């Protein structure tokens, strides 16, 4: 009897706890797609540094010398600001959203498929851009975009952008591929040696390929898929799955698989190709002719953070010309700070990565969260949302 009362109490507690974090309070603003935005205020002014700050970042964004002693843009900041930095990396936007929800992290590098989810859930707060001295030098084309602002209020500071690439083994995949067909329609040539990104957002990569190869599907935006278009992308991925050796979300695992030869072709980030090459893997990377999905990342501040001053200082440091240039070169992406282009060790870096080339980036489909209101502006159909993508992804992986 005693036990059952205790269990009852426990059940109630568990339920209460979940209710508490499941309900939003005071939502008076609406974001794109009509989601409610919790009413949070940005910081007025910076206080004294809190002595520490914890960052949730894509691998390669916040290097403190522990991976490579020569790659370190954190130690100087720690001495100057007195804020000790701890870094936790994540492999997918979904992981980032989940980890940020714990409230344990002060700063996060969020891609476009994570930003709005975090804003809507009240996990991140608006940014007072006056407190970020380097904000004025950020490219205007990255400010006030639909993935980093709501009603003209910025929720973060743009960091950089780039495209997902095709990596291949130079010895095994000949001739050198210039199309995603090597991992889709022609994947059977390399059966069991193909890799793909392990997240539902990868469905957009299939949709992007179908935009070029199956125009009759009329896909205009790989993140705005109606039932029929989603089904076509899922079909393509199910066929691909038969030839996949491993899916990756941990970038070190992909490096290792290419190094030992168990994988010969698949989607990648420039930084992974760079690391693999530095470890003597015979690989190269290419932006295929169909264009690609990509990312435009934003530094955001946790709403529950207790280290907001250090958070602002760190964000300001990460988008400062020198550091932004160092990260952009290490990760292989276009920096967000226009002055960073003068600080790169390779003077052509910004040209190579098209930092100021808006036409180029119009061909890169930045990660975005699919919602029911079609992002491509169609009103005659309902689009599939990310929850449906998630279910389909389980089917593909099953």
């Amino acid at each position, binding site marked *: 009897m005693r*036990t059952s009362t*205790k*269990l009852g109490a*426990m*059940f109630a507690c*568990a*339920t209460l706890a*979940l*209710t508490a*974090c*499941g309900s939003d309070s005071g939502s008076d603003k609406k974001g794109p*797609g009509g*989601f409610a935005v919790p009413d949070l205020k940005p910081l007025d002014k910076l206080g004294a540094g809190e002595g520490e700050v914890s960052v949730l970042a894509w691998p390669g964004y916040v290097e403190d010398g522990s991976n490579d002693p020569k790659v370190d843009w954190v130690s100087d900041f720690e001495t100057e600001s007195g804020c000790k930095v701890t870094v936790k990396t994540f492999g*997918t936007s*979904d*992981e980032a*959203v*989940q980890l940020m*929800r714990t409230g344990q992290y002060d700063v996060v590098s969020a891609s476009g498929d994570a930003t*709005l*989810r975090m804003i*809507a*859930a009240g996990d991140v707060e608006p940014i007072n851009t006056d407190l970020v001295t380097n904000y004025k030098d950020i490219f205007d084309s990255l400010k006030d975009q639909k993935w980093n602002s709501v009603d003209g209020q910025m929720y973060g500071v743009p960091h950089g952008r780039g495209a997902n690439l095709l990596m291949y083994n130079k010895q095994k995949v000949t001739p050198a591929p210039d199309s995603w067909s090597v991992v889709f329609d022609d994947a059977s040539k390399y059966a*069991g040696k193909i890799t793909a990104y*392990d997240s*539902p957002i990868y469905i957009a990569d299939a949709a992007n390929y179908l935009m070029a190869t199956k125009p009759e599907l009329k896909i205009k935006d790989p993140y705005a898929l109606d039932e029929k278009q989603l089904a076509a992308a899922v079909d393509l991925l199910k066929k691909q*799955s038969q030839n*996949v*050796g*491993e*899916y990756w979300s941990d970038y070190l695992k992909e490096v290792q698989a290419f190094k*030992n*030869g*168990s994988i010969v072709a698949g989607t990648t980030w420039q930084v992974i190709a760079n690391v693999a090459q530095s470890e003597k893997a015979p690989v190269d990377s290419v932006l295929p002719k169909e264009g690609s999905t990509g990312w435009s990342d934003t530094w955001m501040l946790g709403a529950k953070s207790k280290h907001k001053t250090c958070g602002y200082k760190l964000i300001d440091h990460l988008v400062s010309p020198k550091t932004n240039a160092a990260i952009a070169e290490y990760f292989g992406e276009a920096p967000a700070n226009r002055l960073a282009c003068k600080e790169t060790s390779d003077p052509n870096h910004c040209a190579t990565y098209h930092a100021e080339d808006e036409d180029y980036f119009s061909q890169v489909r930045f990660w975005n*969260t699919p*919602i*029911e209101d079609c992002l491509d502006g169609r009103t005659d159909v309902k689009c599939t*949302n*990310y*929850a*449906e993508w*998630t279910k389909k992804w*389980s*089917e593909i*992986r*099953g």
Partner: protein
Amino acid sequence: MRQRRTPFGLLAAPMAWLVVAYLGALVAIFATAFFTTDPFTNKVVTTFTTENFSGLFTSTYLRIIGRTLLIAALVTILCMVIAVPFAYFMARVAPRRLRGVLVAAVLVPLWASYLVKAYAWRAMLQPEGVLDSVFGGTPGYGTVAVVLTLTYLWLPYMILPVYSGFERLPEAHLEASADLGGSTATTFRRIVLPSLTPAIVAGSVFTFSLSLGDYIAVQIVGGKLQVLGTAVRQNIVLDLPFAAALGTASVVIMVVYLTLAGRTGALDNL
């Protein structure tokens, strides 16, 4: 004579731990399985639904559950096939001094990190890895690799109970069987096996349950293989209630397995 009293004070701490941390977590998982998520933010929404449980009975997840059971069964059988003769050798054939060395040899791998051992298998199974160069081929990453790796990882948990089972078996019983004209095969079938069954079943509880829940070794050597553990891992990020339903499924499977094992009397000796 003084009446013996249950020392409630001493038991309070461990009991509280058991109820709060252990049963509490299970109850929370079970409760969460009836909730749903916000399709946009993936946050848990406390609306009652049984959809997560009906989702388990779709072909995708039935296949995943079936595949996981098959792997757990194969690992358990392989462990048995290796452990019985090995434990027999240790307990009955090997001289006393060698026995200690053998027990140590079985135990030593347990001191090494699970991850190190799993990554060692990843390296051995890769193209041009050890298996490839010694045997001229490798099964690659997949089901076979997972069964091999898990068998290696859980083998000590089968050998130890079977070994102590052999040790407990009185020599006199074997001699009596021989005196009464029983052949080696008959002795094994009618004397050794019945008294060893509880030990084997006890070992199988470890190998089966550990294989059923494993997801790390599967991620390391399983290639694209999806099992219950990896499915939970994937859904925990995006659909916590469904992950909870999957977790409940593996708890149910283990309860059934333990009930069956309990009937053989194997759990009385643990």
